[in-house]
């Protein structure tokens, strides 16, 4: 990510179609993996995460001309990915409410049968505990716990104050601890 020159990329994006495409390829190369992991922690399934990632970049590509560079490219992409993921989760939630499925109860079973999950029983339990959190709290918890992201950086990405993020993380940790107490 160190070789990524944001200014040069922005300049290329304002040029002809071929330069624009080359610049976008550089953006995809730099941000696809971190975005993938962020999405994967929210949707759990590799296939869903892959679809969300594709949609994120397609949306970004279609709107690249309206990106003025007021925020960092990473922030812009991350926000598109968050919106895509939340839309997907809401759609999934409404589908599950129709089929009367309990997503949290099924998650541990689902993860055990997932060929792309290599965690042990405790790690599967942690994922099930995280799945009980509201979406935004889950996002904050994942960013802090797995990515060790600073609150200031998170604040820029999510557009929420540092104080609110700290409170959100604190509540998430308490809920997860409670989940473990109840399941032990």
């Amino acid at each position, binding site marked *: 990510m160190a070789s990524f020159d944001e200014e040069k990329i922005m300049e290329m994006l304002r040029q002809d179609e071929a330069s624009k*495409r080359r610049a*976008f390829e550089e953006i995809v190369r730099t941000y696809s993996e971190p975005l*993938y992991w962020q999405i994967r922690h929210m949707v759990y399934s590799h296939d869903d995460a892959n679809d969300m990632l*594709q949609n994120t970049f397609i949306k970004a590509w279609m709107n*690249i001309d309206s990106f003025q560079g007021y925020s960092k490219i990473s922030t812009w992409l991350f926000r598109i990915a968050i919106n895509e993921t939340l839309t997907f989760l809401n759609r999934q939630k409404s589908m599950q409410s129709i089929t009367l499925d309990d997503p949290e109860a099924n998650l541990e079973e689902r*993860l055990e049968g997932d060929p792309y999950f*290599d965690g042990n029983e405790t790690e599967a339990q942690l994922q099930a505990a995280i799945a009980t959190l509201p979406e935004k709290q889950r996002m904050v918890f994942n960013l802090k716990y*797995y990515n060790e992201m600073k609150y200031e950086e998170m604040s820029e990405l999510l557009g929420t104050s540092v104080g609110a993020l700290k409170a959100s993380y604190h509540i998430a940790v308490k809920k997860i*601890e409670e989940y473990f107490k109840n399941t032990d």
Partner: protein
Amino acid sequence: MEKEEKQILERCGNRRPFTVPEGYFENLTGNIMAALPEHPVEKPTKVTFWTKTKVWAYMAASFVGLFFLINLAVNHTGRNQEAQMASIDSEVYSDEYIDSFFETAMIDEYTLYCSLTNTGNFNQL
């Protein structure tokens, strides 16, 4: 770090428990780029004479409409007032009254003329 967070870390660690198919990240950029649709090129929009002048045309039309509305309202009110005045005048000063007034008032035409021009009422007749 708070106590509860430490306990979760000790119990579960923060290793990512997910994997991806082999070679997924190596081919990811190529796959995403291949799936991108053609970028919509913004065509410059042709500015026609109508596009340039339509704002003025709309404004002119609304002014004309407004003028007719005001005109209609004023004429209607004026006509009502005239009709009202006419009915008042005919009620108060009927022809018979005026004729009998001149017969009994002992006033000649010259005095009447002077009286009307002095008071400014002559024009109203």
